Each structure stands twice: as C-alpha cells, then as structure tokens.
C-alpha cells in the first residue's frame, strides 16, 4: 500500500496543480461578493423607495393642511363637503384600540401556547401542532375579515347588546387570533433555544415543570418573547383587511370599543378603492396617513430590536 501510495501521490497533486489557476474560478471568487452585495442592497433600496414614494405626496399634502392640525387634530372628516378636517388622532386611536385588544388576546394565549409546546408537549405533538398553527397564520386576512363580521360580531352582540355591527372589539379579537400563531411560534423558538442544561439545572433542584417554565425559561427567553410580541403588534397595526371589513369607517376620538372606528390602514383602503378624486387633498392624505403608519411600525420595530439587543441573554 505504501509504495503504491507514494507512486500515485504525485499524480493527484499534479492533477490538482494543473487545474489550479484556472481563470474562471478566481473570477467567480471575485465577482460573487459584488453580486451578493447588490442583492443585499435591494432591501435598502426598497426602504428608500418606500420613503421616497410616501414623502413626495405627503409633502404635497402638508402644503394644503398644516402639520399641527394633522398631528394634533381630534377630528378626521376629510369627506365633509363644507369644512374638511384632517386631525389624524382618531385614526391613530382606532389603530391603537384594535392593536391593544389584539395584544390582550394574543399575548397571554400565545405565550401559553408557546409554553405548552416548548415545555410540556412531546416532540411529536409539537411537530403536529406548530404547522397547524402556521396555517392559522397563513389564513388570508380577508377570510378573517368576513369571519369577524359574520361570526364573531354576532356572537359578541349576544353578549353585549349595545355592540354595533362595526366596532373595535370584534376585529381586535380576530386580529389577535391572526397574530397569535406569530407570538406562539416565535416565543416557542425563543424558549426552545434556552439550552436544556439550564432546564436540567432547575429540575435537579426539585423544581416542577411550571417553576422551570415560569421562573427559568420564561425569564431567559424574555427578550425573544418581547421581540415577538412587538413584531406581532406591529403586524396588528399594519393589518388592513380585517379592520376595513369589520371595524367600520367612522374615525372617532373616544375610548369606546363597542362602536364603529377607523384605523389608518382602513382609511387608506377606503380611499384607494373609493371615490375620492385624483389630485384632491383626500387623495394626498392617504400618503400622509401611510407615512404616519410607516413611522409607527418603524418605531415599533426599532423598539423590538432595542429590546432584543439590550436584553439578549447569553447562554
């Protein structure tokens, strides 16, 4: 074997040496990083594109409506023939109502599901349930919209007689159902990435599963969980079809959740599928609202990143 090896030894290295220094290989090696940077830059260009699209028309809008009226006005009546008012606060409030209700539904449930899946369920159960929940996340939002309008609202009306057909409660709950899988799934990921050794450490002290889950795993995964919640809530803020269908179209500035509302997204849909004339102030207002929405979600996302950076656990 030895002698044969020696003999052949040079042949392979020779073959290698021959094929080395082929131009193509070096060229690819040099080019790929450049091509890849370009693909990476597309996401940056997208953001720039979004900001640009929004900013020009928003600028036009603020030529017509003063920024302070927009930011601090408590009445949003763009269609009023006599005296249109563009105070964005009712739209923001509508958005917040829906998001807060959604969070109230989705956060406790989602975390409970995550704990169940990550700490209690068997591997097999988890592997069955997680994808089913993902289906729930993939249900198109118009389906949820009709679900809210034709199923959840009537049920809620039985319970709360004063509830209007359009209200914040029903779409809030349904948006909560929609974002629940996101919280459950991402929190589950965060919790399962807590190393088993830490769990074992607690179990070896005589802790019950509940104590391990709540006092060790949950705190250790907290940053991931909070980040998932923030992301899910920013999804709720951006949700469009559910609130357009079931939330109504009356921006109100009060804390009532049983009456009709309008969210920022629903307003954009209303106008962009509606009757407003091109070039009118109403038309430009959707860009201003879109920009506001963008800033909102941007802040939420920065918050999520801040949280997950600031509180990242090292294990």
């Amino acid at each position, binding site marked *: 074997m030895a002698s044969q090896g020696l003999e052949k030894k040079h042949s392979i290295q020779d073959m290698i040496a021959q094929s080395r220094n082929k131009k193509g290989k070096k060229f690819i090696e040099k080019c790929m990083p450049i091509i890849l940077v370009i693909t990476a830059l597309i996401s940056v260009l997208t953001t720039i594109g979004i900001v640009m699209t929004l900013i020009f028309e928003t600028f036009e809008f603020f030529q017509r409506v003063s920024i302070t009226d927009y930011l601090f006005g408590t009445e949003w009546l*763009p*269609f*009023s*023939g*006599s005296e249109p008012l563009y105070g964005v606060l009712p739209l923001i409030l509508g958005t917040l109502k829906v998001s807060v209700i959604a969070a109230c539904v989705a956060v406790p449930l989602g975390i409970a599901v995550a704990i169940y899946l990550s700490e209690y369920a068997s591997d097999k159960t988890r592997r069955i349930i997680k994808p089913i929940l993902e289906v729930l996340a993939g249900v198109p939002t118009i389906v949820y919209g009709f679900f809210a*309008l034709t199923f959840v609202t009537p049920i809620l009306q039985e319970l709360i007689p004063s509830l*209007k*057909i*359009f209200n914040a409660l029903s779409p809030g709950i349904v948006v909560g159902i929609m974002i629940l899988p996101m919280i459950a799934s991402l929190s589950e990921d965060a919790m399962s990435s807590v190393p088993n050794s830490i769990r074992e450490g607690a179990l070896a002290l005589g802790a019950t599963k509940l104590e391990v889950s709540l006092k060790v795993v949950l705190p250790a995964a907290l940053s991931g969980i909070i980040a998932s919640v923030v992301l899910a809530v920013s999804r709720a803020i951006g949700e469009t079809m559910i609130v*357009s*269908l079931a939330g*109504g*179209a*009356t921006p109100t500035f009060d804390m009532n959740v049983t009456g*009709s509302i309008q969210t920022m997204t629903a307003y954009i849909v*209303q*106008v*962009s*599928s*509606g*009757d*407003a*004339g*091109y*070039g*009118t102030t*109403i*038309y430009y207002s959707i860009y201003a609202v879109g920009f506001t929405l963008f800033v909102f979600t941007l802040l939420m996302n920065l918050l999520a990143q801040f949280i997950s950076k600031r509180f990242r656990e090292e294990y």
Partner: protein
Amino acid sequence: GSETDEDATNANDATETAESGDAQLTGTVSGDGSSTVSPITEALVEEYAGVQPDVQVSVGVSGTGGGFEKFIAGETDFSNASRPIKDEEKAELEKAGIDYTEFQVAFDGLTVVVNPENDWAAELTVDQLKKLWIEDGTTKKWSDIDPSWPDEEIVFYSPGTDSGTYDYFDEVILDGADLENAATLSEDDNVLVQGVASDKNAIGFFGYAYYLENKDKLTAVTVDGVAPTNETIESGEYTPLSRPLFVYAKNSALKENEAFYDFMKYTLENAGEMAEAVGYVKLPDEKYDEGLKALEGLK
C-alpha cells in the same frame, strides 16, 4: 371560457344582438373604476368574450376615484364612474393631455329602505328624509320626525363616505350638509342590508341592485309617493334619487385600438339589457343611440 348555448339563453340572447361579431379582432382593453358600475361591466365583458374571444378585456374595481387616478396616469382605456367627473380630475386629465368622452350606461336608483316590521315610515317625503339624515347634534328618535311614530332611537346605515352613492345622496337630499353622525358607514353594501334587515328601528340607503336582491328582507321607502321600480327610474319619475352611471372613454384609444372601439360599441348596444340583468335600470333608448353616434364620430 365556456360560454355555450345554454349560457347565451341565460343572457337573454345578448350574443345574438351583437352584430359586430363578424370580423375577429385581437387586442387588449383595460378599464377600471366604480364598484357600482362593475356588475354591468362584468356582464358585458362576460358576453363580449363570447363574441370576440381574442380580445382581452380586463377591468379593475378601484372605485370611481381610484379609476380616474389610473385613467389620468394613462393606464386604462376607460373608466367607470358612479358620478360625473370632478373638476380636479378634469384638470389633471388636461394636464396629462388625455381627451375623453363621457357615456351614460344605466341608472342606479338609490333606494331608501327600512325593516319590514317598520309600518310607519314606509312612505317618506324628501323633507322627512332631510330631517332624518342631517346631523343636528341630537340623538334622533322616530317620534322626533313625526310624533305619531314610536319613541325609539333610529339606527342609521349608510354607504361609506368615500362612495359615489354617499356623495350623491349627500348632494341631492342633504344639499351638502353633514350626514347623521351616528350612522354606521360601510363600504360593503351587504353589511347595510344585514343591518337594516335585523333591526326594526333601522333605516338605510344603497344601490337599487342590493334592494332587488333582498326584497323579502327589506321594505323600500317611497319618496314623495313614488316607489323605486324599473319604470319609475327609467322614466325619471323617481326623483331625485336616481342617478346615471357613466363610462369615460379615452378618445385616442378609441381611434387607435380597434378592439376597444368594438368593445365600447358593444357596451352601448347591450348596456341597457345587461344593466337590467344585474339589477340596475336601463336608460331610455335615445340615450344609447346618442352615445353610439358620439362614438362613431370618434373612430
């Protein structure tokens, strides 16, 4: 598609009336606009596909305003509208150098409806409608309009503020005054139907087609003694709540795109019939002839 003979019978022999189907055309036609007009357009497109299968007609439903936006951007050949074009839009079109022609295609009778259990308000006058619908800062009860009516709160349902229907009602009934604040507004007329059908104290208004489809669940209110029917709307007797529906066509496209010209011709020839088929009211025949004449002039 599968537009077979059976299809044609269902369509009241619409295909047979089309005499323009001799020369087989190809090309694309694109339109957008009012959701109110869209059922008529859909019926037309469906039938036209049987006549000229190689002409690709596509129509979006972005609302009247959204339709004009795309029309102004030059993306569409025609734009459906449930109201006449606005001055801003005219100006923008001029700026964009787009010449257009307005065609009327049908009437939509706005129908005021109440719950079938409501036996007091089945006949209203325009003045009563005003009283009902204009915002006056109070919470209205039926007894506020007429003391003999029940002492119960009125529940209002109206199409969304951004719809042509709302605009039209606001203009002709309310003279531009603000609509009752307590009204539930929806972009989806089915929701209004549901709302009124389920509440004895409800009142609402929407397109005639939605009433026709839900006759058994709703009572149509007569306005100044006239009930909304095909006849009263076509004859103009049902005033002021019937409004014309429009198609705006781009002149240059009519000239250059034979398929588009042919489709518009087909539209004007069959719009009346199709309108009735989907729950609207046809115009008097002269109107369509006028349209066809105008169209010919643009070829």
